């Protein structure tokens, strides 16, 4: 039947089909098809229900992560001024060239093209390629920093040849005075990964600057200010389209120092080419007047970067220009401790003002053959405390130390801050060392010998002090027991509010049984410079004001029992350190000073004159020295 139908003419075909059955079948299929479609669209609705209702929160977060970026707005770093308002550190605009990673197709070629208009060293190039590999594609990386104005101009003309590359203006730290006071001010450098771990990561970016030494480091938090936050909406290319929210940055505080840089410069200049340190403190306030550590360096080098050769020079093992001798250098204090030992003797009642000791040029413990020599081979004959200070008699202080014992010496000297950090606002301060029985047992696991007590009595042996500690102790002595924490910052000023906060240190009082113990010792120190027998009589002879001082000559190497110290026969690096501490004017101390000249020989000959010059400059406004240095611009 089917076969017959196929050869039928078309018009008749419909008749032979079972129309009703086909129609039913078709309607049936249409309904099934319709239901099938509805079911499929139901799946879509279910899926959207999941995405848009159940997981809505999650996708909203993802969407916000796409579009919202939190950008820090860096705060401007506070400036540093000296006591006269001279700028010591501030921020200059510098230009860097950056490129969006995504836009760099061929780094070699880009560098080649770039080198035709600006200098890009091999090192810069290598750095750039390294950054390129380690940065996400929409971020920009540094190609070169510190472009000169000329280079900026040349690049801007050619900019269309470098897609995605642009000049960025950044603030760079600048130290107008260069090396002057560098050890006080310190410097900033790019933050290291370790430093980044230690600070609040919101406050710093990986290429930010952070204070590395000196004031810059100690007051990092204050100088840095508070980073602002910008919530921005970005598109897929990372371009910022609008700012959603903004917390403005709080600029860092400006810091005013107690130091007058003209004075600081003078203190550095008088040292000349020696390795030396001069610390001058106003004993009335604890404010540091000068803190010279020579040789010094130019802190700007650390901001802008330097070549390998320059850096190697700064690391010179012998000169160590980066080493802040004033706060980190630890030296045997030598005879400069004698005034304090004298005070201890009086305080503990083992000596009286007039009790005298016979000095025959050496001292020996009763049961030991070792001879502890006096610097003066012929001896000082009969000396009381006054005379012992005046002539710096070692034997007197050997005997005194013997009678005091190490424990009492240790306890007393600690009250003057020996062996303790002074707490100055310059980072990296050394502690010095005032030895004790316990200390030796703990560190060296050895018993204390009585002989060691004797040499601690003249500031040798294990004793170590920083120039700053000596100055602080001397200042306390000059103020008859008012010990103040030294500080370099005079005031911190908040630019936003204009509030100026001064830095002050409240004194700690060292009280003795009798007030006149101070006079006894101070008089001895006056005799050091003003008496005809004084070890530093030369500097006091024509002084226009009365002052007090004490010389010190610290041995660097031990001299054998039967040998004499002869500077001509030993290398310079084993020469004695020359020291001097003092304060002036006598009755109204305005300056306390300590001077250490490494391998400078006798304190009286090398250190004392430096101290006198510095004190003169400070105390005599019309001194020829001061006028001469003032006429020149700083």
């Amino acid at each position, binding site marked *: 039947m089917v076969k017959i139908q196929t050869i039928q003419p078309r018009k008749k075909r419909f008749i032979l089909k079972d129309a009703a059955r086909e129609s039913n*079948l078709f309607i049936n299929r249409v309904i099934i098809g319709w239901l099938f479609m509805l079911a499929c669209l139901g*799946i*879509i609705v279910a*899926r959207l229900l999941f995405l*848009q209702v159940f997981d*809505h929160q999650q996708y909203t977060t993802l969407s916000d992560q796409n579009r919202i970026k939190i950008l820090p707005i860096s705060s401007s770093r506070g400036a540093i001024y000296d006591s006269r308002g001279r700028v010591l550190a501030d921020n200059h605009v510098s230009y860097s060239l950056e490129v969006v990673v995504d836009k760099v197709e061929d780094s070699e070629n880009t560098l080649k093209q770039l080198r035709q208009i600006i200098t890009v060293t091999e090192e810069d190039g290598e750095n750039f390629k390294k950054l390129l590999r380690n940065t996400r594609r929409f971020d920009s990386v540094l190609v070169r920093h510190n472009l000169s104005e000329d280079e900026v101009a040349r690049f801007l003309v050619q900019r269309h040849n470098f897609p995605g590359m642009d000049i960025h203006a950044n603030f760079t730290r600048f130290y107008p005075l260069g090396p002057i006071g560098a050890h006080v001010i310190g410097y900033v450098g790019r933050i290291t990964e370790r430093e980044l771990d230690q600070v609040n990561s919101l406050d710093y970016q990986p290429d930010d600057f952070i204070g590395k030494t000196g004031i810059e480091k100690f007051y990092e938090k204050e100088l840095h200010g508070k980073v602002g936050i910008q919530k921005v909406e970005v598109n*897929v290319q990372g371009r910022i389209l609008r700012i959603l929210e903004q917390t403005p940055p709080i600029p860092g505080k400006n810091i005013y120092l107690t130091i007058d840089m003209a004075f600081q410069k003078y203190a550095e200049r008088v040292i000349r080419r020696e390795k030396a340190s001069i610390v001058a403190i106003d004993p009335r306030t604890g404010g540091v007047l000068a803190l010279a550590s020579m040789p010094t360096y130019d802190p700007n080098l650390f901001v802008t970067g330097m070549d390998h050769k320059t850096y190697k020079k700064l690391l010179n093992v012998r000169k160590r220009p980066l080493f802040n001798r004033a706060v980190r250098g630890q030296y045997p204090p030598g005879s400069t401790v004698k005034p304090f030992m004298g005070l201890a003797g009086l305080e503990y009642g083992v000596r009286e003002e007039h009790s005298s000791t016979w000095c025959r040029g050496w001292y020996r413990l009763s049961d030991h053959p070792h001879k502890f020599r006096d610097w003066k081979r012929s001896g000082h004959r009969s000396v009381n405390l006054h005379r012992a200070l005046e002539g710096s008699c070692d034997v007197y202080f050997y005997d005194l130390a013997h009678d005091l014992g190490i424990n009492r010496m240790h306890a007393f000297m600690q009250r003057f801050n020996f062996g303790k950090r002074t707490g100055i606002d310059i980072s990296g301060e050394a502690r010095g060392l005032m030895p004790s029985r316990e200390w030796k047992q703990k560190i060296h696991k050895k018993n204390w010998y009585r002989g060691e007590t004797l040499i601690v009595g003249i500031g040798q042996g294990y004793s170590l002090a920083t120039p700053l500690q000596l100055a602080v102790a001397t200042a306390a002595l000059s103020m008859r027991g008012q010990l103040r924490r030294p500080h370099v910052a005079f005031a911190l000023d908040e630019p936003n509010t204009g509030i100026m906060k001064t830095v002050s240190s409240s004194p700690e009082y060292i009280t003795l049984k009798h007030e006149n113990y101070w006079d006894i010792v101070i008089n001895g120190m006056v005799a050091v410079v003003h008496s005809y027998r004084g070890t530093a009589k030369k500097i006091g002879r024509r002084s226009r004001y009365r002052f007090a001082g004490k010389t010190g000559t610290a041995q660097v190497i031990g001299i054998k029992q039967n040998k004499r110290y002869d500077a001509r026969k030993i290398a310079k690096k084993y020469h004695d350190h020359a020291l001097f501490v003092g304060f002036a004017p006598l009755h109204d101390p305005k300056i306390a000073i300590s001077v250490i000249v490494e391998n400078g020989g006798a304190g009286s000959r090398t250190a004392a004159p430096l101290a006198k010059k510095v004190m003169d400059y400070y105390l005599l406004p019309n001194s020829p020295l001061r006028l001469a240095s003032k006429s020149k611009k700083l």
Partner: protein
Amino acid sequence: MQANWDTNHFFHLDKPLLLGLMLLSSIGLVVLYSAGGEDISLLVRQIQRIGMGFAIMIILAQIRPQYFLDWIPWIYLSGILLLIAVLIIGQSSHGSQRWLNLGLFRFQPSEIMKISVPLTVCWYLADKPLPPNITRITIALLITLVPVLLIAKQPDLGTALLVAASGIFVLFLSGLQWRWIIGFLSLLPVLLWSLWQVMHPYQRERVLTLLNPEKDALGAGYHIIQSKIAIGSGGLYGKGWLNGTQSHLEFLPERSTDFIFAVYSEEFGLLGVLLLLGIYIFILTRGMFLAAQAQGTFARLLASSLVMTFFVYIFVNMGMVAGILPVVGLPLPLISYGGTSLVTMMASFGLLMAVHTHRRLLSS
């Protein structure tokens, strides 16, 4: 039926269907304005295309289906020839050869097949009693599979699937016995496996990406992830028109074409999606209703298969944008920016209306 005549039809157009299509294209233009970054010229071009689509629909609606009955095999055969021509001398773009350059414009022969295949299968099955026997099923399948393979070879998987579906739908609607349907479904794994074998690496990657988009979040999975974020962050009520961040900040790729549904979902939320689906379901239902009323096997099969093909567009596009189907590059009908498929779809609606509005004449 008679009573509806005057209220529902004029110029051989079905008014409810026309209303649905106009509503859809209006929504499409609104979304496109947002998705295209508020670009007026883009909108103008799309309006021109929609105009052209409607014109073609109106023209086709005027023609009695039996007038082009005799043309059907010839259109089909020339379509096959053109597909072969494409493989030999076609122009490539994005790694596949789909276009023929006819001087004035570029032309995608696979587009013809979207209508021509269901037409031809309908034509072939209509002159015999239904359901079809095994020989006729085989021939109907061959009519479908030849162009499908040719299109898949270009490669254009989306169109190939669509053409395959349109042919198979005709078979289903023609009353194919359930044992064949079940047999076919059980063969599906084997078919999928062989499909996997002929797939191009980029197509396989798309499928793999669908299964685990996070595996390659910045590469192949990027489209799907961003699309899901757009939809999901839209929530119940949406972010509001022109406020979609995923689209306006350009995180969403292909946002005015294949992924426009994500833009819509982001800005109008689930409620907006339900409205859109409602309109689609209205059109599908009206289409199926018209098909059910159609007289004669050919008219019925044609009308219903065209409706189901239209459905495939909707389902596949939404499915891929929502991340449950692989990304195969099918537009969302009447919403996505683009002309070719729009014209094809409007043409099929023209045929659908013709089938319906000429039926009295057909039966007389």
